[in-house]
Each structure stands twice: as C-alpha cells, then as structure tokens.
C-alpha cells in the first residue's frame, strides 16, 4: 500500500467531490470540511459517477438514481442492498490530499 499525492486540497470544493484516475482506478474524493474521504467513483447500482452526487454529512447520493453511499464504510445505505464500494484512506499533508492505494501490479496478483 502506498500513499499517493493527489492534489492541492482547495481543488476540491467544500461538500463536493472530484474524480481522479490513479493507476487505472477511478476514485472520487470528497471534501467534508473537516476531512476528506475517498471511494470508488462508480455506484454499485448502475455505475453512476459518485463524485457528481450531493454530499450530506458523510453520505453521497448518486446523481443517477439517488442511491445513497456511506463515504466512511462504502456501504450502500438506501436502498439497503448489502452492496458496497471500496474506500481508500485519505490524509492531508501540507495542503495536499494523499490517498492510500494498492499498486496495480499487487491488485492484479
């Protein structure tokens, strides 16, 4: 697992998300004001871009059909279909957002 420097924190507006491609994986990073969270940028329902959803607390509503994903656990909250998206640890260092991600070669293995 490696921490990747992604972007300056101000590139992601408050209570919004932005997508980023890291080594072939599309991740949505959200700015919750007091912290940043990251999940896969695809709703388990129909693959909607979660980065474009409305963020409320630590939840995002997918822009396509309003399915809600918890950004902390990755679980789909409603409807409760027992599915989830992957989450990625995020930290901010010197104003830069870092995401921890497994290198592609390990994932493939």
């Amino acid at each position, binding site marked *: 697992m*490696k921490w*990747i*420097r*992604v*972007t300056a924190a101000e*590139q*992601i*507006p*408050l*209570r*919004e998300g*932005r*997508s*980023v*491609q*890291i*080594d072939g994986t599309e991740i949505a*990073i959200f700015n919750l004001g007091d912290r940043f969270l990251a999940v896969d940028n695809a709703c388990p329902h*129909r*693959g*909607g*871009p979660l980065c*474009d*959803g*409305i*963020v*409320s*607390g630590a*939840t995002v*509503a997918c*822009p*396509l059909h*309003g399915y809600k994903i918890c950004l902390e656990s990755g679980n789909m909250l409603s409807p409760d279909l027992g599915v989830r998206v992957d989450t990625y640890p995020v930290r901010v260092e010197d104003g*830069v957002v870092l995401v921890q*991600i497994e*290198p*592609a070669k390990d994932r493939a293995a």
Partner: protein
Amino acid sequence: MEDLVVIGNGMAGIACLEQILKHSPKFRVTVFGEETHVNYNRILLSSVLAGERTADEITLNPLEWYQSNGITLRLGVRIVDIDPAARLAIGDDGSVTHYDKLLIATGSRAFLPPISGLNKENVFTFRNLDDTRDILAAARPGAKAVVIGGGLLGLEAARGLQVQGCEVTVVHLLETLMNMQLDMTGGEYLQQKMEQLGVRVLTSRVTQRLLGEDKVEGIEFANGELLEADLVVIAAGIRPNADLGRKAGVTVNRGIVVNDYMETSDPRVFAVGECVEHRGQVYGLVAPLLEQGKVLAATITGNKGPTFEGWKPAAKLKIMGVDVFSAGEVVETEGAHAVRYEDPAIGVYKKLIIRDNRLTGVVLVGDAADSGRYMEWLRTNADLLVRRRNLLFPEPAADQGQSIADMPDGETVCGCMGVTKGQIIAAIHERGVNTMAQLKECTRASTGCGSCSGTCEALLKAVAPGFEEETKKLLCKCVPFTQESLREIIRSQRLRSVQQVLQIYGNGIGCEVCKPALSYLVDVIWCGDHEEDRSARFINDRVHANIQKDGTFSVVPRMRGGVTSPAELRRIADVAEKYNVRMVKITGSQRIDLLGVRKSDLPKIWADLGMPSGQAYTKGVRMVKTCVGTEFCRFGVQDAIRTGIELERRLENLYTPHKTKMAVTGCPRNCSEATVKDIGLVGQEGSWQVVVGGAAGKRVRKADLLITVESTEEALEAAMIFFQYYRENANYLERTYDFVERVGIEKVRKETVYAPAAQKKALLARLQKSKTLSRDAWLEREAPVHPTQFVQIEPLEATIQ
C-alpha cells in the same frame, strides 16, 4: 356602583379587569394608560421589531372592547399622585379621579445601569411600542447596533435589529448569556446559536460610558476596549414601578407588597403584575401575572377565596429557531442531581434537576419541544421515580392523540395566556369551537408567542367534531417545515444560504431532497441576491448540462422561439463532429440536443457554439415553442414568432419551482400546442388569450384561461406576472398544472392579473430584480465558479512505482 380606577393599561391590569368584569359588573371603571395605545401584547414587541408583526397585529383589546364594557379609557395620562384619605388619583393632566377601589398595575421600567452618556441620541430602552418604533426608525441596514444586556429581552432585541439589517453586537456583563435562566453550559450553547445567526456576542464586559457628541458613536468598556455603535439598546433588566404604592400609603419593598389574596396593606388598594411583590418575589413573565389577576378579581369582587401561592420562575426565548426554555432552579445545589443530554454538533442541551425524585428545575437549549411536560411536573411536584430511566425522552405514546389524552386537564397549554388543557376542552364542548381561529378568539390560547399551536391543533383534532385538519407537507425530515413556513422563515429571518437554513432550522446536514429545494427558495426569495452554494445543487446545475445514464452530458443551446439560422446550424454541426457527439437529436421543444458529451468538453463546446444555455437540464425556463404565425402562415392572426422570442428573452435564465414550458401560437389552430403548456399565449383576431397550467407529460391537462387581452404587450405582461407568482408561491417540484389546481384558478387570477396595481407592479419588480441578477449559465466557461468545476483532477503523482 363603586368607582374602580385602574392605573396601567397593560397586559396584567387589563387581563385582571377582564376577570373582574366576568365576576360582576358592579364597578364604574376608569383605566389610565401612560402610553397612547390600547392594551397590546407586550411579549410580542420583539416580533414587531423583527418585522414579523405590525403594531396593530399585537393589539389585545381594541377600543370597541373598552366601549362595549362601559370603561372610561384615558390614554396618555400618567397618574402622578394618590390621595388615599380622600381616595383620589391625580393625573399629570390635572385630572382628579375618585375611587372606591384602586388597582395599581403600573408594571415595570427598564433598569438603567450606571453608564455615563445614556442621554445621547440613538440610545434606547426596549419596553413599549414607542420604544420599538423609535428603534425601528434608527435601525438602518448596515448600522452598527449594540445591545447592552444578554438576557431574554436583549437577545430578542438583538435578533430584531439584525433582521432589520443591522450589524448587531450583544454586550453582556457576565460570562454567559441569560445567566438568570440558564446555567453556564446552557449559556454557551445559546451563544453558539446566536453567533450562528450572525449576532456577535461579547461577554464579561462592563460598559463604562457611551461615546459621541450628541449622537452615540461608540461605547467604552471598563477594560478600555472600544466598540463602534450607531445605536444602542439598553436591555439590562427591569425594575418595578412601585412609586404609586408609596404614594397610596401601602407597604412597598422592591414592589408593592401583596398577600396571597392579592391585597395590599390598604383594603381599598390592590396591585397586580410586574409592580407587585409577593412572598418576596417579583415576577416579570406573563403567566403568573395572569394568575394573580384571577385571584385579585375574586378578592376585589367580594368572592375572596382563591389564593396566589407563587409561581416557579419560567422563561422562554422567542427567537425563531433558537429554542430556549428554563424553569425552576437553574444550577443544581447540594442534594440534587442533574440529568443531562448534550449534542454539540446540533446544539441541543437539556438538563433536568431532580431532588428526591421530583423535578425542581429544567434548562432546555436547542430543543424546547418538551417544555410543557416539564412545566407540568414542576407544577404538580410529580413523583418521577418510575420515570427515572427516561426523564429526557417522552414515554412512547401510541400516537399524538394518546399523548394529548394523557395530558392532565390542569396542564397549561398556552404559557403566555395561561390557558389549560381543561379550558380548551371546555371551549370546544361548550362553545362549539372547531377551528384554530375560533379557539384563539374564545380562549386567547396561542395568541402569545404561538409556540403551543401544535398542541392546540392536536387537541382540536382529538376533541372537536368538526375539525378539519390542514394538510401540511413538510419539506423533509432534515428541515421539518412546510415550504410555506420555510419561505416565511427565510424572508423574515433574512437567511441567504442553504447552509444557514439547515444550521439554524434543520439538522445542519440536509440531503439531496431538501438542499436543491432550499437552493431554489433562497434564490427566489432574494431575487438572486443570495449566497449561491453549488454543493447544494444537483449536478446538472453545477455544470449546466443534463447528466445521462453513462455519466456523460447532453447539451441543448437556446434557440429562442425555436428559430435558428444557417450559421448556427453550421456551428452545431461542426461541434458535433469535433467533439464526437454521439447523437444529434431534435427535441420535442423545437431545440437541438447534442448527446453523450464529456463533462470536460462542456465549456469548449459552449464556446464553439457561441449560443446561450437552453436550460434543458434544470428546473427553470425551458423554452417558448412557436408556430410561424403572421410571418408566413396563411391563417396566422398574431405574430407568434416575435412574441415567443420576446417572451423567452424576458424570462430566460431564471429558476422556477419545476421546469417551465411555454408556447405562443398565432391562431386558435394551436400548432405550437400552447394550451398544454405551463404558460401559453393563444393568438386570436385582435386579442390574445393567456392560458396557464397546461400539461402534456405524465398528465395531460388543458390550460386554464388566465385573461384575454388586446395588445401583445399586455399578453406578455400577464404571462410575466403569473410566472413570478408561480415562482414565489408554488412548492419546489410543483408544476404549474398542480399549482393552479391546488390554489384554484380564481384565486390565481385574483392575485395576479386582477390584483391591485401595486401588487402586480411589485411582482414585476421582483421579476425584474431576479432578471437583472441572472445571466447565461454557460458564460461560466470563461469564469468557472471553481477551477475544477468541469475537469477531472490530474493526480500530482500519476502512477505507482
């Protein structure tokens, strides 16, 4: 007949007089009032200051009431002396009035702390209607207002001033606000709420003097700090007006001393209200004063028996969205336990003080919904042993009717007016009360601060046979108000951002349902002069395009009236090729749709097109569809194209509660289908029919006729008036066809095209303001609201080593 002279025309005196009149009509009554107003509800002065009510709306007893009860009313006369031997009241107008019985109800005055310079201009107290009017006259938007005193009245004054547009600072002597009614933690929670509203709070400040020449310009604190001020309101407490008691020769300590029968030391002299001291206590809140009045009325009319045995102090702050309630002890002393509940994130703090299984005090900040239950426990000294595990939570009730049924008859429902559940039930059964309005008239319940209206309605619902419930649909559980209330809240409380509404009136978080709705409401109420928060908007309104099932977007440029040109068509074709647009489609709205566009290409496409946004992605002005009208058609009788283009130009770029589709047709053949549009103009020989509320979507509905007018300009104006009326009054996501049906076309007509000229002008002026502040959303291609509005983030480190 005996002469009864009442000195004081305020709430306590007149409420007592009402009780006296109920007992017996044997008095010839004269009432002296120093103020020039009939009796009004002093509790609501802060809402007059906040612009929520007019002075007339807080009148309790109109002139006709005095007349029909044969009362001689002397307003603007101050009683300056009393001759107890000759039984005379002497007025400052030289009048001498004889009494057999004297009722002193002179209330209290503002306490003026020892501050030098209090006589400067723009320094006010806040006790009566004249004070309120003076403050309002001085409270200009942007003025720096300082309120000295962070108690109930000071905070309400501060909020009122802020709503008037002033920059408000509350200065408080002690460490925490409302220190008489709240413990320190409660005071801190309250301070946080006030600061969220935008009121600045300075605690632990001793005000030493007011600065400035004639007019106040600032204040100086004991620690040397200075604060600018254009106006200063002193709200540092009240003192009983007990001087006339001394002149009447009765015992006076802090207030005029009365016993449990409300008698003074002179059998002919009585006193009630804030000027009275009972068992060492002086009361400044209305409920105990009304109780005193009832007892006094019995005594003075020869029905001596009932006694006033004191009252647990209780206070409620009347600032919308800042719930504060306190009663009994505030700080736990030895032998007492405090039961607490705190949630700092949403600003809720509750504390009950329990001694020997009985409630002796309660402090509620941020949620005072249960205040009635706690008051009842206090009043009845209820044994709480079996409830010890859920003191802070209501016992589960089957439904609201059940909890209403559980409420004892003696429990006070309306604390302002002192109305119990039993009295409301009696009014329903014995006087046929069926509506809230009747209940208010009959019992006065819910005419004070109004916070008991929910309980009153629940009682009506449970008991009144003819009660019809108003159906109220709350916007969302995050912010549990109807959209109508929210409009009122946003307007009266001057809230300009979604987050502010959620912080103060909701759970602070919101969701994808309420945030877009609130975004719409703050925009329309402030005519675009609000704080736009894109995070609260749906993605379509962040990037001004319609998201598709694969996350790409569709682009529909505006073609007013459905009219385009070869040059535009060439640019559209070029764009479609250049950006590999997956499909080019003619829409049902006479527009061209480019489908399958990547988000990052949007600004480039808009630039290449050089056409404005068609708003095909939003709840806004979609289009005006036209037929060719007189321009080409053999049958056309009106110029549909020019009129349609003009209508679109006048309304485009604005948000509406739901999408708004319009059409103009040049003759009754209706080729552009104007009679199934939200707004349609149907041309006829020599006139236009303006029709509204049509639909050809999920529902099909023929539009209603709004008005028939002769000129094109009149037709456009009628459409604009209706358009703005719909924007201001429909619920978010309510199409015109649901709105018109809900309101009724007759009412819509009366409030739009047939409204008084001033009303129509005001609607058009607000539309104009919105229009001036609006612009083509696609211009954000040059000035994005955020650097990454349209782009995907490029990682600083692209690949993993």
